[in-house]
């Protein structure tokens, strides 16, 4: 029963709703309380929402495995579990908006802007998409557009916005200096909001949809380079001269990798959205390379960096083992590079064989299969790195090791430490 067609959507859904979304929620809650200068109040709502959410995910994954899955990417959960997920998330989103309402700072900081955006857009995306695709399905001819809107929105406006918000908060804290330019940040926020929501349709170039919808997706994917570059320049200038902090501070190290992945992923998406390129790469493994880069290289690395920063502060205990952080980082980096490169190269060969009239379908399958094997190795590297992280996390929760005076670094900080004391 457990063929690829069931395991793959189950794994992707677990990645999106079992890891990425809960991580984004946790980081978002911490960021919104921190930046609004309001303590976590009424936590019963949040913890019960968390339990309901996890039950919904469990139910959804079992649903996919027993054959109730839906044929949409990132929307594979059956309708009975998405109702539960929506209720859980709505509780959290309302809580966040109440906190933002009573925010004590006069003007929203950049991090706050991105976090609020994420918490407003996700319920909207999730509710609209589920309503017209699962709960009350519209005619199939129209469903693909909504699914593409959700796919783009989930990646960019939910996970992307949360990760960018976390970067804008954590990088200045970790290197102890303000954001390079607030104005540039505002520009990136509004251009991001404008363009990122439209990018989804670029995956249907030549597909059975009105051409203008697809063109809008192509244009948005290229224009999304504006916010990406402005964010990258802003973060880079904030880090400028302080990159050496990545030598000892886990947060900065993970975030630096995420920054590079963000730029690569956006450039990649823009090039891949050009119709001439897309006619070769679409339906091959190339979009998978983009997914690894965006989902793992960017979002997950930000999430890891943020967790390394946040957890000692909320839990009053330092990370027990710095060598596990080393393993986590290097295995993850190796997995990301191998996974991206093999999917990219294999995808290109496969795409050319699919495109070229002289090549048969068989050659496209044979070209890509050694690269699929490499992708599998990359998945094992990522699995090993995640095991290192998970064991560290458990050791942390058990408060193993001796109490420490300062944070756990990967090496001795050079000169004066730029890690600010826990507030």
């Amino acid at each position, binding site marked *: 029963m457990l063929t690829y*067609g069931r395991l793959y959507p189950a794994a992707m859904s677990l990645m999106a709703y079992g890891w990425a979304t809960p991580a984004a929620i946790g980081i978002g809650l911490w960021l919104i309380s921190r930046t609004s200068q309001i303590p976590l109040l009424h936590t019963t709502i949040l913890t019960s929402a968390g339990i309901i959410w996890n039950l919904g995910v469990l139910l959804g994954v079992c649903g996919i495995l027993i054959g109730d899955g839906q*044929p949409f990417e990132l929307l594979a959960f059956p309708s009975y579990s998405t109702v539960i997920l929506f209720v859980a998330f709505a509780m959290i989103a309302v809580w966040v908006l109440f906190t933002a309402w009573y925010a004590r700072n006069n003007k929203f900081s950049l991090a706050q802007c991105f976090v609020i955006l994420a918490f407003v857009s996700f319920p909207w995306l999730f509710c609209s998409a589920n309503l017209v695709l699962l709960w009350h399905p519209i005619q199939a001819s129209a469903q693909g557009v909504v699914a593409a809107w959700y796919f783009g929105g989930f990646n960019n406006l939910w996970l992307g916005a949360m990760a960018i918000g976390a970067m804008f908060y954590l990088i200045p804290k970790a290197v102890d200096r303000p954001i390079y330019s607030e104005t540039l940040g505002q520009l990136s926020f509004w251009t991001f909001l404008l363009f990122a929501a439209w990018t989804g349709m670029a995956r249907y170039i030549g597909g*059975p949809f009105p051409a203008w*919808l697809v063109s809008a997706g192509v244009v948005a994917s290229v224009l999304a380079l504006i916010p990406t570059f402005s964010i990258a320049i802003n973060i880079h200038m904030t880090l400028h001269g302080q990159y050496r902090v990545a030598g000892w501070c886990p947060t900065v190290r993970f975030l630096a990798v995420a920054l590079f992945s963000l730029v690569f992923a956006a450039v990649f998406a823009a090039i891949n959205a050009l119709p001439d390129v897309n006619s070769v790469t679409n339906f091959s493994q190339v979009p998978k390379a983009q997914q690894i880069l965006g989902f793992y290289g960017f979002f997950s690395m930000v999430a890891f960096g943020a967790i390394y920063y946040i957890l000692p502060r909320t839990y009053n205990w330092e990370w027990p083992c710095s060598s596990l952080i080393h393993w986590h980082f290097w295995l993850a980096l190796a997995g990301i590079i191998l996974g991206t490169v093999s999917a990219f190269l294999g995808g290109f060969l496969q795409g050319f064989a699919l495109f070229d009239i002289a090549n048969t379908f068989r050659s496209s399958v044979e070209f890509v299969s050694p690269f699929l094997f490499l992708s599998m190795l990359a998945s094992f590297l990522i699995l090993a790195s995640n095991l290192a992280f998970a064991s560290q996390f458990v050791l942390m929760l058990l408060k193993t090791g001796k109490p420490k005076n300062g944070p756990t670094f990967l090496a001795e900080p050079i000169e004066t430490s730029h890690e600010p004391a826990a507030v």
Partner: protein
Amino acid sequence: MNKLTTFIIAIVVVFGLSWVGLVAYPVSTLSHLQPLPDEDTGGAFPPTTSGLAVAGQKVYAANGCVHCHTQQVRFSPLSTDIAKNLGKRQSVARDYIRDHTPFFGSSRIGQDLTNYGVKETDANAIHRHLYEPRSVVEWSSMPSFRYLYNYRKIISQPSAQAIQGLTGPNAPKPGYEVVPSPEAQALVAYLLSLKQNYPLPESPEPTAK
């Protein structure tokens, strides 16, 4: 006005634009496409599908076929789909109005299935393929869907539905047979119904080569 109110109104306006374009617009237009009358036979394009084929869509969805197989023919000359004989014309929105959910797909690890029912008309051959893909296409990377079939002892008469022509290690032992479950039969009926070989005015067949 609280600063949050202004901020949220701004987000709603800008993000709402994408919602209008990519949700409200398709819901109001694309989801109300009608079939076109076929004047020669009194039928309609796209033709209606059998109840068994509709049930087969659920089996197709449940087993995640969409993760390896696309069902869309892109236009020429952007793509070579038509030159590679995936179909004679481009797929358009109206082609999908009979489906419950669309299986456009995003990966071609497996063949495109838009016109599978045009190329393959033998139900037994499809059953053999689903039962053990490598017995039909030796380089196939498709998993076997044996769990949709019953391997059972022949009682008095062999079943008329039993798969014929299984050879080598896949052949049932003497006195045994492999019979498709209702799911497998529905799935095959659905696969046989996959045809975009009727004319639609919005998607003329390209003529000049």
